[in-house]
């Protein structure tokens, strides 16, 4: 469960200060599929970094599964990311010269999972993300964009995170492939009860989530159930 209370983030640029977040407060329950939507420069990336334990807020608190993440050191943040968070990036960020399996197993390298168990875990996640088995041993740069993003999703799932953060996951994909990837997220949310936060600037993409938090100029301007999804 995510509990964010009045978090702000101020960047210092020389003498001037820039407040990217001006006090965001919300809760996300386990098993929710939430979209954080806003135009570029709205502060959604800053929020994503804080939710993903890549950064700490200037003020306010962020509880992830009951643990205060807002005041941790770099190494403690790394532990949180390793244990509780799975990232899916717009630019995929796979290791180009490594096989699909090795890419998916990468987070386990930094974990305490036994070497013998890793492959089975990775294969299971790749299947869950919907990648054909005959692609498992391909190099990641031999795959199409949609396939690459499904590998990235499998990588995000492999350490059983409490939260999956997808940062513009369809930004580099065509609409049709994007739909497939978003469908994968929906399926993982429904079938496996995964908590998913989707960061996007596109309303169409945000429509795939059950709840949409809209952010503008560092403020949350709306936070509502997505009626479109509820009807379906």
């Amino acid at each position: 469960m995510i509990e964010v209370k009045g978090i702000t983030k101020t960047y210092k640029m020389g003498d001037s200060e820039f407040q990217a977040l001006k006090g965001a407060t919300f809760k996300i329950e386990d098993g929710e599929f939430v979209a954080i939507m806003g135009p570029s420069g709205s502060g959604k990336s800053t929020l994503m970094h804080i939710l993903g334990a890549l950064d700490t807020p200037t003020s306010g608190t962020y509880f992830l599964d009951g643990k205060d993440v807002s005041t941790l050191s770099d190494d403690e943040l790394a532990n949180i990311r390793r244990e509780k968070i799975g990232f899916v990036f717009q630019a995929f960020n796979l290791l180009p010269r490594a096989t699909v399996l090795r890419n998916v197993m990468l987070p386990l390298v930094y974990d305490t999972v036994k070497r013998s168990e890793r492959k089975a875990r990775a294969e299971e996640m790749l299947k869950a993300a919907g990648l054909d088995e005959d692609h498992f041993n391909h190099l990641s740069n031999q795959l199409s964009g949609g396939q690459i993003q499904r590998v990235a999703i499998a990588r995000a799932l492999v350490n059983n995170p409490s939260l999956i953060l997808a940062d513009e996951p369809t930004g580099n994909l065509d609409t049709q492939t994007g739909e497939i990837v978003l469908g994968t997220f929906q399926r993982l949310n429904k079938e496996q009860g995964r908590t998913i936060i989707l960061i996007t600037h596109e309303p169409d993409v945000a429509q795939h989530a059950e709840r949409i938090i809209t952010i503008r100029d560092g403020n949350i301007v709306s936070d509502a159930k997505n009626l479109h999804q509820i009807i379906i």
Partner: protein
Amino acid sequence: MHVLDILEETYSALSGNKARSGLTMLGIVIGISSVIAMLAIGQGAQSSITNSIQSIGSNLIMVQPGAQRGPGVTVSAGRGSAKSLTSADATAIAQSVSSVKAVAAEVDGRYQVTSKGLNTNTQIVGTVPAYTDVRNLSIDTGNFISELDLTNATKVAVIGPTVQSDLFAAGTDPLGQTIKIKQLAFKIIGVTKAKGGSGFGSQDDMIFIPMTTAQRYFSGDQYVSSISVAAVSADTTKTVQADVTTLLLDRHKITDPTKADFSTLNQADIASAASSVTQILTILLGSVAGISLVVGGIGIMNMMLTSVTERTREIGLRKAIGAKGSDISVQFLVESIFLTFIGGLTGIVLGWFIAWVLNYLGIMQTSVALYSVFLAFGVSAAIGIVFGYYPARRAAKLNPIQALRFE
């Protein structure tokens, strides 16, 4: 992080850019192999010089005549030119100086020597039977000069193996043959064993005749060219040298030691002078090689820095999925240590091989010292750590957010 994982990551990172890893490693290979080879050359030169000094004799003190001086005038001829030492001096040394093993005076000269149809120009040494003890000379066939030869001033000669090959066809037994030195016929009674070595007067290219014979037929006086004194042990050479000096000063009635008409040389002094020269040579060669090793190390640092920049996004990703700063720095440090480790091993093998080839082809005497291998290996490991540390720290300190956005 598991050790196997680190090695796997290292392997895949280095094999990902084989050409660059190979070239970087080459810098270390060249550095290490030149350290090994250069030190081996220095070491070889040192031991070859030491050996040839040892071959002159052991615990040896050489007494040579001083410069010739006119009465009261300061015009001096070259050192050793004076005729101031006699065979009586040699006898006196043998009788009155303690800790002396043997004394051998000699009368030297270079003359043309002929046998049947062949001739050579070589050093003729007129000496005494004790010469073999003093100069560690051994006889291959026949005998050395005897006391009887000395008293009778017989015209007999003992030749060195080089002289033998110069004057006689291969397979001819030189014993009993006659050679002519300065037109005088000498009968060969022995051949010395080859000692090898060159410089410092190879004793293989000498003819030994009785001292009395040399004085009677060649020099025409009672003086000797030098007196070699062998002390009983290395510890006593210093005292023997001092005692010999005192005795001779006394015998020559000289009160001021600075005006001595002879000089003494201690073999240990010669050896240490020679080894200080080769030590400088070794240091010089070693430092040139050391510089190339440092250049190789900088090459590693350069490659690692490039690699950190190139892999910024990868580092960002690794951090995002839970790698700590220490995981990242270990990975880069291991990469650079791995490069220097493999490069160092290859360099040791190559350097050893170069030293062996130089030796094998007879270009230069080399000897690979074990310490240089450990030194080179230690240095290469240290280079890996030192030159890998900065890039590794830089990678570890990267901010994951900025690293992920890096284009």
